């Protein structure tokens, strides 16, 4: 698994997500092709009623994301839950990282534990489709568990799990075999 090998872009999704302006401009870049629809598919993992998303002009040249929700009409994205917003950002980051590298900080932020498994499934498929290498950090056991299950189910052989361990000023990346992590989680052991 070569690092940064021939990658043309490096996208970074911070722990707190993108700001509104960045989000809107990323959405705009996906106007052509299946990108926007794919991002919406990801958001539908959290809320199946989502039909569409549009931006409208707000005050002071800001732009506001409006969701079209079945049975509810148009609702501002920011008034929906944190999970949906996080999923929107992950979807945007992924769709705009084609043939590159995507860095996701604090993967689990705002995401319900049950969604994390589905999201890893989706990201696994998307990584192949868009040819993206994903680096994600987490403190969440559910995130690790979802990652391990998705890797196993999809038979992704080039997925790796590292634990960062600090000793004085050195940080070690400890390579954990997925088969061991899976067994440890099953036995309610600590892997973090």
């Amino acid at each position, binding site marked *: 698994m070569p690092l940064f090998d021939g990658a043309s872009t490096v996208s970074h999704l911070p722990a707190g997500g993108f700001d509104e302006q960045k989000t809107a401009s990323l959405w705009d870049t996906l106007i052509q092709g299946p990108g926007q629809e794919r991002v919406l598919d990801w958001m539908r993992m959290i809320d199946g009623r989502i039909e569409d998303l549009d931006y409208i002009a707000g005050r002071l040249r800001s732009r506001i994301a409006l969701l079209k929700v079945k049975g509810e009409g148009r609702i501002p994205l920011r008034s929906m839950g944190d999970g949906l917003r996080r999923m929107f950002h992950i979807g945007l980051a992924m769709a705009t990282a084609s043939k590159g590298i995507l860095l996701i900080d604090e993967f689990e932020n705002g995401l319900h534990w049950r969604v994390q498994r589905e999201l890893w499934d989706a990201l696994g498929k998307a990584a192949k489709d868009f040819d993206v290498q994903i680096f994600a950090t987490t403190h969440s056991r559910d995130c690790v568990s979802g990652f391990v299950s998705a890797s196993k189910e999809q038979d992704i052989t080039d997925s790796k799990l590292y*634990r960062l*361990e*600090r*000793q004085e000023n*050195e*940080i*070690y990346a*400890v*390579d*954990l*075999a997925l*088969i*061991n*992590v*899976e*067994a*440890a989680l*099953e*036995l309610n*052991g*600590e*892997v*973090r």
Partner: protein
Amino acid sequence: MGTPHSLLAAHGSDSLLLVEGPSDLHAVVQLVRLVHKAEPAFVGFDCKNDDGVLDQLSLRLVQPEPTQKIVGLILDADIDGSTEKDAVQRRCEQLKNRIGADYDLPENFPEEGLIIDPRPGRRALGTLPRIGVWLMPNNKAFGMFEDLLLESLGDHEKNYTSSVVNQAKTDNVATFHPSHLSKAVVRTYMAWQEPPDLPHLSFAIRKGHFQNIETACAVFLDWLGRLFIPLTR
């Protein structure tokens, strides 16, 4: 039992022996007592089956601060669907999947039992344990603990009991699976001794029913002694 072979004790002890079932666990502990006239210094843990043994090993390799300094594994070389020839090989592959990232496994499984230390410099939080692996009965043949006990019987006792059990199989009196032949022979032999209703291998070992056990288990006991230092307390 003098030693608490419980889950709690297993997690806290720095010397741990993982086995496939309660029968093997008590038999090994009894064997050590019989030969060394002292209590084993390791804590044995019944993992229910072979996958359980491997999973408990996995747990100890990924936990951030490993508690154990030494982890021993006793596995039967009788994986479902394996043959005489490939049982040991398949166990090696299973081991490699679990420990290959941190330990250098030898190309051929050592007949005197495996004892292996982790490659250096892999962790900041703690040191991975020394690992010992014994594949019953002798690290080369297909089988289980009872095959080792079979060798502990005198020739006459072994041959006589085996022929009777085989006859029972031929005459459709015995319904055990063919792969459990050594279990059936050992238990039949136990049923013919006084008292005939000993429920566990460990009781028969303590009673001295396996006359040549020290000789037959010498290499196994040597492996235990090289792995757990000291072996008894």
